[in-house]
């Protein structure tokens, strides 16, 4: 199953390298979101503020949803999904492969966006960057897991693009809560970011288990 999942993830990366339709859009989107949140909270997101730290999480979650809209899109448009479903591989492999690709896209976007966010808002006196990076990595796993799961559920829906954000956002509220808490906990001298990091790991495990258990029902027959 692992080789199949890796192969599916690789296909998605190759496609992305050739077509460049998701990651660039995500990058522009996260930049615009950060600017919008900054102006929306005008005054509260000055350099070094906690609101500036929290807004990264809002931006990441919305950007992830944008990326998720294209999961399975290529397969569906080119009719490859039926072939994948007929292939003698575990259903879970399709979902894990898509989640891996989604995780990778998020990491690429964050590698660019987080330094920019840091330079724009902190320079000095921000949260410890190590904690933020670990929290983001754990959160990416969770977002990719539940996001791909929701994308698979919404696959046959008439209003798929409208539906997906509505399905994903309530599911990732706990991730945002824990991510923001970890970020706040890592400000300056304060310590105590470990419990939210542990929570993020727990979230990943719980939803990985739930998704695994239900994966044979996910993509339809």
């Amino acid at each position, binding site marked *: 199953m692992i080789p199949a999942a890796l192969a599916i993830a690789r296909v998605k990366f190759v496609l992305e390298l050739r077509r460049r339709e998701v990651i660039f859009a995500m990058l522009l989107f996260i930049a615009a979101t950060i600017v919008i949140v900054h102006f929306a909270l005008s005054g509260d997101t000055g350099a070094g503020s906690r609101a500036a730290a929290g807004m990264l999480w809002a931006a990441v979650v919305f950007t992830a949803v944008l990326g998720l809209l294209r999961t399975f899109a290529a397969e569906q448009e080119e009719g490859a999904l039926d072939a994948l479903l007929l292939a003698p591989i575990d259903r879970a492999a399709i979902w894990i492969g898509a989640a891996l690709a989604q995780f990778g896209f998020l990491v690429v976007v964050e590698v660019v966006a987080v330094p920019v966010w840091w330079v724009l808002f902190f320079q000095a006196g921000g949260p410890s960057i190590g904690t933020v990076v670990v929290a983001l990595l754990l959160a990416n796993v969770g977002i990719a897991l539940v996001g791909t799961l929701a994308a698979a559920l919404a696959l046959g*829906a008439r209003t798929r693009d409208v539906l997906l954000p509505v399905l994903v956002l*309530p599911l990732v*509220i706990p991730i945002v809560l*824990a991510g923001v808490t970890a970020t706040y906990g890592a400000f300056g001298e304060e310590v105590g970011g470990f419990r939210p990091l542990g929570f993020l790991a727990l979230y990943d495990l719980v*939803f990985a288990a739930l998704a695994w258990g239900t994966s044979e029902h*996910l993509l339809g027959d």
Partner: protein
Amino acid sequence: MRSLGRLSTTIPLVLSTILIPLTVALAFWWTPEDFDQGLSQKIFYFHVPIALTSYVAFAFGAFSAAMYLWKRTEVWDLRSYVGVHSGTIWGTLVLLTGPIWAKASWGVWWNWGDRQINVFLILFLYYCAYFMLRFSLDEGERRRSASAVFALLGVGLIPLSFLAVRIAQTLIHPVVFTSDGAAMPNSFLLTFVVGFAGMLSLMVLLISTEMRGKRTAARVLQLQRVARGEDA
């Protein structure tokens, strides 16, 4: 089977007709007025039982979803839908009665520091999305399994939300309202239990009535098809 179906509506009908007015009577004429909150505390006998009952309905929906994925019989899909449906209706009541109580006792309509109501809000948003998912899929096997998987995931979301809200509270702002603290007098507790039993029987009544309605509708459709000679 048919008599059992009738009993499943008659018993809760009788129980809720007795218990809910009884709760009103006990709450207003028997329990003493709360020393701290005064008259506004009476909403406790309605708000909290409604909230607990809607959790029960969501749990029933999730349990039925798991049963559907296991047994693959349509009736479990219907039960799961009806459970989530009733839970959401009652959830709306929770989100309406909660702010009334909050305004009366804390002076604000909404308190972001309160754990229960925030978790409930997340859960409510989540299960509202269930209907969007369900009704944008065409009727059939695909819709039934997708709805079941989604209903089931809520079981993971509830404890995780509780945990996340608690962790966030300890770090971001101090916990202002801890759990009840003072023990309830017996009259409070008894009224609360009567209220909870009343709400539960009303919920059972609603669920079994909706189930009967759905089954009748399905049967009518089937008979119409037979009458048109489409299939037997």
